[in-house]
Structure formats: structure tokens, C-alpha cells
């Protein structure tokens, strides 16, 4: 009887710990990179540059995006998350990846956190999110960082 009770208690504790750990992974702020640091990384030889992924909206990407970056889709959208998973799935888990959006002020961006949480849950160890305080126009384009137009 005592063994059964212990087993049940242990199972409950384990479940609670797993739940707490998953919740922490979802809510923890992702590691960030500044615009200046990313711009410096983009000047390196191609083999040393990160994979840069835009998880915002297509109309913004078509107007202006970080050179070499790829458009995936909004991280707040199930399709966007599925596309991101498909894109990074085959990559080594130590691949250097930078996610960015810039749709809205940093605290209110609905796209970067779900995208970052996905990559964290997939085991990516060198993933960062570009910190954009206000929006992509004000904090990247207007500051003169390299920008590319088109699809």
C-alpha cells in the first residue's frame, strides 16, 4: 500500500515539474541580439553568417528586409509555426539562427516569442531574436542598417 502511495506521489510530482518546466520554456524571454551586432555579423563571410528568419508579415518583408533573410510567416499563426518547424527541422541544433519581426513594439510583438519557443523546444542552442524596440522601420531601416527590397 505504502509503495503504491509513494508511486502515485512521485508521478504527481514529476508531472508538476514537467508542467512547470514547459511553462517556463514558453514564458522565458528569448536571448536577444542588437541591431548593431547583427549588422556586424552580416559583414562576415557567408559561411559565418547566421540564418536570419523573418517571422512577421509578408507585406513588410516585401517592402524591406534584412539582406539574405528568409520569410516564414507570422510566429503567432499556426501555419507560420509549421513552416518554421519545416525550415529548421533538418538543421544541426547548433546552427546559428536569428529570428526577427518588428511588426510592433518589442513587448507587444506576438510573433517572435512563439517562434523562439519552438526553436528552443527543438533543441536549438545558438538561436537569438533581434531586439527591435519599436518597429522594423524605425529601428532597422531608418537607422541605415542594410536592407533589401522584394520577395
Amino acid at each position, binding site marked *: 500500500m505504502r509503495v503504491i502511495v509513494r508511486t502515485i506521489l512521485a508521478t504527481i510530482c514529476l508531472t508538476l515539474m514537467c508542467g512547470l518546466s514547459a511553462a517556463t520554456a514558453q514564458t522565458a524571454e528569448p536571448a536577444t541580439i542588437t541591431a548593431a551586432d547583427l549588422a556586424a555579423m552580416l559583414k562576415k563571410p557567408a559561411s559565418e553568417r547566421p540564418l536570419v528568419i523573418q517571422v512577421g508579415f509578408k507585406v513588410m518583408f516585401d517592402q524591406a528586409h534584412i539582406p539574405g533573410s528568409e520569410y516564414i510567416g507570422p510566429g503567432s499563426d499556426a501555419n507560420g509555426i509549421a513552416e518554421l518547424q519545416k525550415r529548421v527541422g533538418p538543421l544541426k541544433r547548433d546552427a546559428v539562427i536569428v529570428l526577427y519581426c518588428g511588426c510592433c513594439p518589442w513587448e507587444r510583438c506576438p510573433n517572435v516569442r512563439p517562434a523562439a519557443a519552438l526553436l528552443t523546444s527543438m533543441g536549438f542552442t545558438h538561436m537569438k531574436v533581434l531586439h527591435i524596440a519599436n518597429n522594423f522601420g524605425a529601428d532597422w*531601416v531608418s537607422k541605415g542598417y542594410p536592407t533589401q527590397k522584394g520577395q
Partner: protein
Amino acid sequence: MRGLASIVVATALTLAAGAPPKVGDPAPAFSLRDLSGQTLDLASYRGKVVLIDFWATWCVPCREEIPHFVALQDKYRARGLVVIGISMDDTEPPVRAFYQKYGMNYPVAMGDAKLADRFGGILGLPVAFLVDRGGRIARRHDGQTAAAVFEKEIVALLGK
């Protein structure tokens, strides 16, 4: 004389390059198909005060502004206010669902990069323009703006 010619050439080149419209400039013309299939032609609203809102369904600040736009449209329709929504969503279905859910009472059309460029770039959301009765840009608001600010500006424009 040569100086004047240089200014004219420079101005022409700037316009050709698509200089972003400033306050006081004519609002860029557009004709789009709205969600109900009707033509949404900005020129047809000359004589009205027009609020053009660039937004997206997943954009939290945009979602918070929309009930205020619905209320403003109701309150000032008779005096000549027209609200137009330009969605920056990638696809139309979520916009249609949102339109119903939020009881939007003004036309909404899907935007694209060309239209956004003509308005000086929409590189963050929401962005709203107020256009006066003469079709000129009266204000541009980047980011979430208080309903009271919009109302004050709309009332001023309607009064002109």
C-alpha cells in the same frame, strides 16, 4: 536659372523615386476590392474625412484600436467620416473571420507592398492616416494611438 533647373530636376527625380507623402500632400490614390467584393476607391470619398488604418488580425495593438474605429465610424458617419481598413495579413480568411467577430462596420481590403510603399512604407503596425475633405493627408500615426487623439483630430477635420 541653373539653380532653379537643378531644383526642378531634383524634385522630379524624388517624385519619380516615389518620395513618401507628407502631411499636406494628396493621399496616394488606390482602388481595391473590399471583402464584400465592392470597389474601394479612395477618390470616391473626396469631400469626406477618411481614416485609413493599416492593420493585421494578429497585431495586438491593432486589435485594441479597432473597436474604437467601429465606434468612431458609428458616431461620425453622418457628419462625413469614412474609416477604411487595409489588412496586412498574408491571407484573407482570417481577416474575414475577424471582420465578423469584431462587427467591423467599415470597408476592409487586403493591402500589398506596392500600396504600402506609396504610403511611405508600412514597416510596423498599426499605421493610420487621416485624410481631409480635400483628399490631402492631415496626419500619420505610427503605432497604437489613443482613441481620444483620433476623435479630436477627426472632429477638427469634420468641422472644416
